[in-house]
């Protein structure tokens, strides 16, 4: 646990680890100067950032609408104050009022302490965008966090977790470093599991040339969320699709969005396009991952540098389509357990999946209970932007960040008899909530949405 003047922060990647993701860390005596230069580049590019810097009225509305502030009551976790960590520097160097009036208008010189504060508080933001959703003007503190993290990345300051994932992406095309043999092995094992549990034959074709559909699952599904992969396999088998999973990009997520939206994010975009080209598919279907779906749905078209040949949809959209057109036979009574839905922020505030998820869950579950607030007003689970750090102090923060979520789940009553299900159809939500439902003793089991589809399918 690195300690820096009482700031909470995750372990940093070493210089060697930074070099693996193509960054030569900037020495301390040049950090300030370089940070200002990078900040200047970013502010000239991003209007969303400039507007967040220049039009906040400091009304304080965003404070109690951010779960990180609600959980910690740390003033720097108030969205506008998180942004202020950069804003005071921005004012000092890039505005007339800041240069002339300094502290009076909240302008400050940059120093190493402030850079450490950036690291601490930009990695305490879940990039959930509830602040953008509630602000009277739509000021998006998530954009400020993203730009803060980008600058930190260029300076050579990235959490170990994010840097190691970045390196794994480059090595294997997925976050967990799965190689093709491991992928094939796991999928064969899941086929057997499906046979044992559901009695149906499901094959997972890998790298099948000439497939119509390329399904891109989250790599975490291979290790942590097997039922999500099994559900997807069962769905594609049920509808008789000619589908495949690519081994070169077995990753629905894209950590590039979270710490390096330029090189790292673009790298995996390119991998996807190569895979689709090589396999000759007609459509790409996306697996369960919140930040990932945001990256691929909203960011890819602008970064691909060419009009995309392949339509990309989310598996929830596809399942919902077949439900609406009455082509799937689902038995909502099979499960027999109460279920509530945690809306992944990226789905509901950035990708428009709120109604789609409800179409699916209502068809699969008889006892479905909404939690409040929900849909686009939902609170983040506290794991967003993969701040899933295990250092003891950061882990304590994760518990605090998920406090609001725990209250919401408790209020639904699904965990009263200890057999509830908390459906959280996003890999990061799942990774955060598996331990958090235990910490908060919620009496629920965490599942994805496609898991429930697989369980409810009626085959004969």
């Amino acid at each position, binding site marked *: 646990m690195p300690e820096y003047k009482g700031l909470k922060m995750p372990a940093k990647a070493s210089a060697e680890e930074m070099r693996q993701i193509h960054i030569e860390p900037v020495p301390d005596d040049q950090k300030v100067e370089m940070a200002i230069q990078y900040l200047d580049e970013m502010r000239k590019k991003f209007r969303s950032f400039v507007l967040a810097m220049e039009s906040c009225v400091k009304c304080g509305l965003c404070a109690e609408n951010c779960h990180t502030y609600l959980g910690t009551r740390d003033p720097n976790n108030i969205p506008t104050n998180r942004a202020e960590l950069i804003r005071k520097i921005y004012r000092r160097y890039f505005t007339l009022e800041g240069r002339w009036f300094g502290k009076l208008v909240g302008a400050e010189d940059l120093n190493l302490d402030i850079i450490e504060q950036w690291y601490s508080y930009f990695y305490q933001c879940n990039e959930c965008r509830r602040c953008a959703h*509630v602000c009277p003007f739509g000021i998006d503190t998530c954009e400020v966090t993203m730009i803060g993290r980008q600058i930190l990345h260029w300076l050579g300051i990235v959490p170990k977790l994010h840097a190691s994932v970045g390196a794994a992406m480059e090595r294997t095309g997925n976050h967990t470093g799965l190689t093709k043999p491991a992928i094939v092995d796991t999928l064969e094992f899941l086929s057997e599991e499906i046979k044992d549990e559901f009695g*149906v*034959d499901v094959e997972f074709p890998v790298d099948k040339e000439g497939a119509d559909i390329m399904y891109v699952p989250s790599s975490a599904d291979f290790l942590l969320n097997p039922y999500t992969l099994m559900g997807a396999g069962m769905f594609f088998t049920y509808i008789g699709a000619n589908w495949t999973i690519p081994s070169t990009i077995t990753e629905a997520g894209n950590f590039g969005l979270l710490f390096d939206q330029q090189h790292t994010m673009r790298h995996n975009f390119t991998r996807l396009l190569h895979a689709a080209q090589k396999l000759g598919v007609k459509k790409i279907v996306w697996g369960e991952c919140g930040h990932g779906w945001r990256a691929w749905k909203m*960011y890819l078209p602008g970064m691909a540098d060419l009009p995309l040949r392949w339509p990309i949809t989310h598996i929830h*959209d596809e399942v919902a389509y077949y439900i609406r057109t009455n082509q799937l036979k689902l038995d909502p009574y099979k499960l027999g357990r109460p279920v509530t839905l945690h809306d992944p922020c990226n789905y509901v505030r950035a990708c428009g999946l709120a109604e789609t998820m409800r179409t699916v869950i209502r068809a699969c579950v008889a006892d479905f209970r909404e939690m409040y607030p929900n849909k686009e007003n939902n609170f983040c689970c506290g794991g967003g932007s993969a701040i899933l750090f295990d250092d003891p102090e950061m882990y304590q923060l994760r518990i605090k960040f998920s406090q609001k979520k725990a209250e919401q789940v408790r209020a639904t009553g699904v965990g009263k008899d200890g057999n509830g299900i908390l459906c959280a159809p996003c890999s990061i939500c799942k990774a955060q909530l598996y331990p958090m439902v235990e910490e908060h003793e919620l009496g629920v089991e965490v599942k994805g949405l496609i898991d429930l589809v697989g369980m409810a399918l009626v*085959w004969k």
Partner: protein
Amino acid sequence: MTYFIAQILPYITVTVFVLGVVYRLWRWAASRIVHNITLSPFPQTKTEVAGIYLREILLFRNVFNFDRPLWVGAWPMHIALLNVIGGHVVGFYFLGKQFVYLGASEALSKYLSNLLGTVFGIILLAGLLYLLYRRIAIDKVRQVSNPSDYLMLLLLISIVSIGNFMRLVPEYGMHYEPVKEYFTTLILFQPAAIPEGNPFFIIHLLLAQILIMILPFSKLMHLFGMFGMRWIENRVYKEPAPGLPNVDVAAARARGTGLSSASSTDVA
């Protein structure tokens, strides 16, 4: 001094204001919308987008939904502010007779003009005092405030207090006609001296000009920023069509995909 405030400063004020606002807007326009960060649920038509703008501008819907105590002060304050600003323009231009066009008599119109000015002036002052109270007394608001946030409110409160004072204390009141004449000479670039030696009017005029000059360099730019931000985040987005290529579910179910003939397990 009075000469400077009344006959020279107004030209400086307008220049600083116009150049300042243009400079800021130019800086915003020079940066780009790099990624698609539209907020969902996505509006499907331009009309829906306009609806979002309108409900936020006219009703402060987000403030209403997510911070009711703030709305109680901010919304009436803004409505009063817009009316006060509008009232200054319309009232002086028509000398208080604007309501004649709506069918009122001249006397009634002047009476209404005065009444509305007083009412909105008081709401505005009350709203501003309440916002100042929040900033001082409520932890989360105090924690996000810079010195300039307080100064801005104090400046506004001073301007409005003096305005209200002139309205409510007839000895120091201003009549519409001389003020209109003064502004007319200003616009014609032949500035005349301020007619009555009313110190409150001079201070009011000075502070208002300071406010107008500060505006482009302050958070008051939010009145433009809000459009800039919403322009990025509230736009039409159409989903790609669902439905998978070469999939025929009925045929697949008839074939019994997934069901090996050898299997005798009944899961349904």
